[in-house]
């Protein structure tokens, strides 16, 4: 199915009828520090990171392994409170003063895990519809929504398959569709394609770009691939290791939709070179 030609594309992104707050989908990260304290051993994973993310922006977090990317993303997802600092999602505080994630705020987030993280006992469509069950959507409605998303991601024929019958790339598509199913305004992704081969990865990067162009969600994606970062991002955020600090923010404004051939472009290559230098590779 063609994304660009979908006539309903425009009005699916913003549910009509209710006036959305102006900053829906914005993320404000304000002086986040995260210390892990396990069995007396303290690890300073992230130190004093501040960042503003605009609604609908595609942000890529990049940095060496162990520099606190996952920590930052999990903190954004409401999975672990920061040791210090505050996060506001669409203008609302994500954590209460006691460090508990506020349910209504998490409800606006979708999360894609590194290894798809599908439930192996559920068929593809039931995996996609899992978040909708929590919202008490009726079964026919859930099925319809899964079919819609299946069509969007080329999974239509496989809705009744089990995850074990799919390739790694397909499973990751399912994971993305599951995150999008409840129509969150923010999509968080932790190295979603790092376990895939290069060709599948290119395909999924392209697919993700097209999905993003249609829905215009705010995306925060973690990767350690420089090419992936340069290809996808509006804004690349570099983290320096030990402890994870904000090193640099680089704006990327290649026009969209970006074709895969962009990676051979001179401007693209020089951006890649710059990122390499920054990361000390």
């Amino acid at each position, binding site marked *: *199915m*063609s*994304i*660009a030609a979908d006539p309903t594309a425009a009005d699916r992104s913003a549910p009509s009828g209710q006036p959305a707050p102006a900053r829906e989908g914005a993320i404000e990260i304000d002086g986040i520090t995260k210390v892990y304290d396990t069995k007396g051993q303290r690890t300073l994973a992230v130190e004093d990171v501040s960042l503003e993310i605009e609604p609908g922006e595609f942000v890529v977090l990049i940095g060496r392994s162990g520099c606190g990317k996952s920590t930052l993303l*999990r903190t954004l*997802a*409401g*999975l672990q409170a920061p040791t210090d600092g505050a996060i506001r999602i669409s203008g609302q505080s994500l954590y209460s003063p006691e460090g508990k994630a506020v*349910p209504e705020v*998490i*409800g606006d*987030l*979708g*999360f894609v*895990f*590194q*290894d798809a*993280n599908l*439930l*192996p*006992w*559920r068929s593809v469509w039931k995996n996609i519809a*899992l*978040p909708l*069950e*929590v919202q008490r959507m009726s079964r026919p409605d859930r099925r319809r929504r899964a079919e819609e998303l299946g069509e*969007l*991601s*080329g999974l239509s*024929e*496989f809705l009744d*398959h*089990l995850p*074990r*019958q*799919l*390739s790694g*790339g*397909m499973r990751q598509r399912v994971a993305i569709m599951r995150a999008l199913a*409840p129509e969150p305004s923010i999509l968080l992704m932790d190295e979603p394609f790092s376990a895939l081969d290069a*060709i*599948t990865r290119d*395909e999924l990067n*392209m*697919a993700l770009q*097209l999905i993003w162009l249609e829905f215009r969600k705010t995306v925060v994606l973690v990767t350690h691939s420089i090419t992936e970062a340069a290809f996808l991002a509006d804004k690349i955020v570099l983290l320096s290791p030990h402890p994870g600090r904000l090193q640099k923010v680089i704006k990327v404004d290649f026009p969209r*939709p970006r074709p895969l051939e962009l990676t051979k472009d001179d401007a693209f290559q020089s951006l890649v070179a710059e990122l390499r230098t920054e990361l000390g590779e």
Partner: protein
Amino acid sequence: MTMTNRDDASPVRSMAPAEGGRSLRELLDTYLTWITTPLLLLAFIALWKLYVVVLDISPFMLPPPEAVALALVELLQEPFFWNFFRITVTEILVGFGLAVVVGAGLGILLGRSKLFERIASPFIVASQVTPKVALMPLFLLWMGFGMQSKIAMVVLLSFFPVMKATILGVRSIGSEQRDLFTVIRAPVWKRLLSLDVPAVLPYLLTGIETASVLAVTGAIVGEYLGGNEGLGAMVVMTLNAMRVDQMFATIVALAIFGFLFYAVIASIRKIAVPWHDSAQND
């Protein structure tokens, strides 16, 4: 621009066999045990017969196979046999059911809480290293010679594998799977129903299979040691009456029941967890 791609869109497992039709080899592979089992059984009976005839074994030591078969046919027509059979089966099924409930309940509790497990584990280990059969006289003293004491023995013998397997199952749930349910804001009941139960099921089934074997053992041992009802007691009674052929027939009947019971339990796997590796044929 479409998002589907030829390479990625084909499910890995739907690859058809290279050549059409099933080869002889595949057929043999599928029905192998349908051929080997009866053959081996026949060979066993033939050896038995041969042994008895050649070495001229007294029928009081080892009756020939046809005598056992005859005794079994006779027994199957006796109402008291069926009464004993009913008693033994009741003990097995009730004890086994209780063991599954107790084992799974304790397993979930101990699997979820490390603290709880640390506190409880000395007692649970003690209950297992104690020779359980040695407790039977105690059970007889407390519960009498009826079914209760035997049911208690069945539970004691068979809850442990169920509990162990359940703990393993609960522990097998990855932290990312738990995170997923946090991210989608699933309430506790939804977690239990949609994550814990299905994830534990294949492990639980493994425990239940082991328990089904131990349950039969428990009931028979219980009946050997106390009371005059049930097939276990009947083995002792036929031996005392020097009806060795009937004793063997009783053992054969027990073996057949044990086998069928296990087969039924094991076949649940294919229906209950078709998604799990353990339910795959290849």
